[in-house]
């Protein structure tokens, strides 16, 4: 077995694929403890500028790695699960016993999880090595990770730019090659948009495919957990580990599909939907539009049939989202009241004053904005004007997708109207909300969507992702298309600065 010192000399495990790591373990080229140590050892320097990690979990990682090495020694490696030996890290809204789960908020700065989220538990049961917790927009409110109370994450492709958000840390950690796999959560685009900005694969599965138990809720009817990876295969392997019914989340569903099964099938005969209205949307930059058209052409060349579909109500998705999301967030965040845990402003004589001061200081601007918005939208006399129509819009959009999927197997659209923007570039909240214009309707309808990297934009030279949208519970359709695009564009590279070890320079 290799020593820890030598392990650090090996190629960074965070830049390897799942299969490469597992091959190395199987051939005893290195041990799981080597993987854990080397991965952890690289983070302080490699993440210094990126700031994807909020916490690393040395002891948990080494304990998990030691168990894997025992299994390998006893010839039980194949029993360990699909992620055996793979370093993995989690968005900081996911509970993992003994770690801080801060949601990047001052409110939960010192909150230590007493239990583990199902999605996290499943990656660990599948043999994953937990490396740490990842930065995000506070309580997942944002599209840039700038609202984190602990400082922003930087885009590994250009440290002057945002990684997207809210799962910015999850996307950046994979793009920087710190870990091969991370988990994020997506309420309106929070996996797909940062995946696009950072040039990695990001999957938001159909609502109900992955358990939400233990993931701090933002919009309960919209939230869904999914993986980030650089290859479609690694993402699919992770999906296999985390998907399926969980008794602790009664909105989760039975899932028996093997997400890796059809990756090699290519797209011949598949019908791919193109939404003309999306392609003409105001704000869509020419380089992103060109990339979507290029991807469509490549798919067509491989034998897919391109079919125009209409999503006439999708334009109302943004409005519905900014009603439903804040309403649910208002209620979900009510528990952060300073009484039993979380930030408590001292010295108040009565409960009301303590609540007010603690929440005013503990929550950042965007969290307070959404709480107040939700509180207003749910109040008597206002509810009927907004909440009820928003639910109707939801039904209409769901029907739009159902109709579209009568004609197509998968829909191809932009993820974000543009590539990663600079810090502070978008200061107006409503402009920021437009980052999610192409992703939100999928959360509203509940079906699956993913961001697939298709190279760099012609104008900015920054990563561009295209969005693949599958019918509900047919998430493997989009993975199949993604795999075909991967053949065209190659597996997503580690961001050049990180790959050459110059992230800090």
């Amino acid at each position, binding site marked *: 077995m290799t020593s820890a010192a030598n392990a650090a000399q090996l190629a960074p495990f965070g830049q390897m694929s799942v299969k490469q790591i597992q091959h190395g373990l199987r051939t005893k080229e290195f041990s799981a403890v080597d993987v854990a140590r080397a991965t952890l050892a690289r983070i302080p320097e490699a993440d210094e500028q990126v700031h994807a990690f909020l916490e690393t979990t040395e002891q948990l990682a080494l304990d998990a790695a030691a168990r894997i090495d025992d299994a390998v020694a006893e010839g039980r490696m194949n029993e360990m699960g699909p992620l055996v030996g793979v370093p993995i890290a989690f968005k900081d809204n996911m509970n993992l016993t003994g770690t801080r789960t801060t949601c990047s908020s001052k409110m939960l700065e010192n909150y230590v999880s007493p239990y583990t989220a199902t999605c996290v538990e499943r990656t660990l049961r599948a043999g994953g090595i937990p490396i740490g917790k990842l930065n995000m927009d506070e309580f997942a409110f944002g599209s840039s990770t700038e609202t984190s109370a602990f400082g922003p994450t930087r885009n590994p492709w250009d440290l002057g730019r945002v990684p997207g958000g809210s799962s910015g840390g999850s996307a950046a950690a994979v793009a920087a090659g710190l870990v091969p796999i991370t988990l994020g959560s997506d309420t309106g685009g929070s996996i797909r948009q940062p995946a696009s900005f950072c040039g990695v694969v990001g999957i938001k599965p159909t609502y109900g495919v992955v358990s939400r*138990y*233990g993931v701090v*809720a933002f919009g309960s*009817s919209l939230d869904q957990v999914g993986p980030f990876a650089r290859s479609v295969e690694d993402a699919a392997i992770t999906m296999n580990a985390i998907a399926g019914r969980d008794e602790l989340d*009664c*909105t989760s569903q039975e899932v028996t599909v093997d997400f890796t099964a059809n990756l090699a099938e290519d797209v011949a005969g598949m019908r791919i939907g193109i939404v003309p209205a999306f392609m003409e949307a105001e704000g869509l930059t020419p380089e992103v539009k060109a990339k979507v058209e290029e991807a469509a052409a490549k798919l067509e060349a491989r034998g897919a049939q391109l079919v125009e579909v209409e999503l006439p109500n999708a334009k109302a998705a943004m409005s519905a989202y900014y009603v439903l999301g804040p309403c649910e967030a208002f209620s979900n965040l009510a528990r952060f*009241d300073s009484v039993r845990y979380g930030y408590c402003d001292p010295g108040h004589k009565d409960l009301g004053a303590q609540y007010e001061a603690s929440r005013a200081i503990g929550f950042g601007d965007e969290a307070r904005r959404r709480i107040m918005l939700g509180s207003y939208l*749910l109040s008597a006399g206002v509810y009927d004007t907004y909440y009820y129509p928003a639910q109707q819009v939801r039904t209409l959009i769901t029907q739009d997708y159902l109709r579209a999927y009568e004609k197509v197997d998968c829909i191809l659209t932009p993820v974000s109207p543009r590539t990663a923007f600079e810090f502070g570039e978008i200061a107006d909240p409503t402009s920021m909300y437009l980052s999610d214009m192409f992703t939100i309707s999928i959360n509203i309808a509940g079906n699956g969507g993913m961001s697939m990297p298709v190279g760099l934009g012609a104008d900015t030279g920054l990563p561009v992702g295209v969005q693949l949208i599958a019918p509900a519970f047919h998430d493997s359709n989009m993975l199949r298309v993604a795999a075909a695009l991967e053949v065209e564009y190659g597996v997503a590279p580690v961001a050049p600065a990180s790959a050459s070890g110059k992230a800090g320079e």
Partner: protein
Amino acid sequence: MKTLEEVFETWEAVIGLEVHAELTTLQTKMFCGCKLEFGAAPNTHTCPVCLGLPGALPVPNRAAIESICLAGLATNCEIQKHSMFYRKNYMYPDMAKNFQTTQGPVAFCMHGHLDLDVDGAAAKERYRLDDLKPGEQEGNITRTDEGYVAHVGIERIHMEEDAGKMVHIGGGEGRIAGATHSLVDYNRAGTPLIELVTLPDLRTPEEARLFMQKLRQIYLAIGISDCSMEEGSLRCDGNVSLRKRGATGLGTKTELKNMNSFKNLHDGLAYEICRQAEVLEEGGVIYQETRHWDPSAKRTIVMRVKETADDYRLFPEPDLAPYDLSDEFIASVRAKLPELPDQKAQRFAQSYGLSAYDARHLVEHRATAAFFEGCMDDAAQAGDGEKLAKPIANLLINDVTAYLNENEGIQLDATPLTPERMLALVRAVAEDAISNKQAKEVLAVVLAEDKDPEVIIEERGMKQVSDTGAIEAVVDAVLAENPDKVEQYRGGKTGLMGFFVGQCMKAMQGQGNPKVINELLGQKLEG
């Protein structure tokens, strides 16, 4: 302050009840697997879900849904196939999530009713009941021979979760006023709770009490709760307002809390009605407020003034899918319905020739009804069941019930009285071995000393004198001692019969056969 009777001369009270019952017979909480146990060490039955920890999600307890449907079917509600949970948002530390999961406009059970038999002293609270003849209807009541039947509408029964329990330290009697700090026990948080809301169909405190009693009997019969008012597993709030007799609008109501016994429910409402009448008659205004019944001071005090309606920002609970109850599910619950108190009373009346009144009171306590059935089963073998049913019912309804009431909390099956002993006792009366009055004495001794009736009769030398000659001598002596009363009796004051019987019994130390005494007195006074 005026008495209730005086108030009712001018005012009509409009009362509605909100009754919370914890489903204590379930094993686990409403939305998590934590054990339900009253009296456990604080915060020992908790988990991320009932503590409302970040990331936790609710999973509904299927058995609780069955229980509420049972409650609905037993109270003549329509079971709604389609309903859902809602979040009721308010900040208070007893509710860790700062919202309560409850139901919205459509509850699992809607539009039910209970018919209350109001008789005896309870019927007297009703204003001018005697204006109605038996069989006559007025509003929601129908006059009967012994009183009236009140038809009380039930608006809904919905499912929700209980809050934790707050204990305020440093103030008086655990109150928040003056407290230095408060403790919360989350063992109770997430306990499945059903809330029944009546229509404002009740008019007297007695009707409210009877409604609660009947509801409690039903809940106990279907086994969904231990229904302990002291421990708070059955709780009742009363909404009460007054209006002038003949008026149809509704006055401003107050909400009354802390009525944790049937007596407190009655007395609290009675006080509040009289208080409101006094305020109104003095030209004052009733404020919509929550008031606390203080049983020791015998008055209600203001807890909270509701200036505006609370805005709970109710919206559908996104973590729980809407319910679509199948016909099969509802049928399966219906199949689990046991015999309900009303049905049991009807069966008792038919099978054992009891009056409706007796039958109804026999089924008030499940243990008493079971005891009665035990007696009847034993008697069936001897073939004297029909003859003994009435005397057994009388002793159970009057003497035994009084004994149980005096020894609060005791159940009939925990007393020394057994069906065998009861049968021995009433058979002794049937055989004229002892008098009814003596039977009551023997019963008291059975209960107090745990002895067989035969032994007690023997020990105390009890016997009943039925010998006509011996009794005639006593009757003659009594009549001779009271010539003036004999005169009055013959002059038409026949009520004096009781006096004469009493004097004879006294002379015979209670051992005279009252039937024979009555006969002889009758003969001699009329003759």
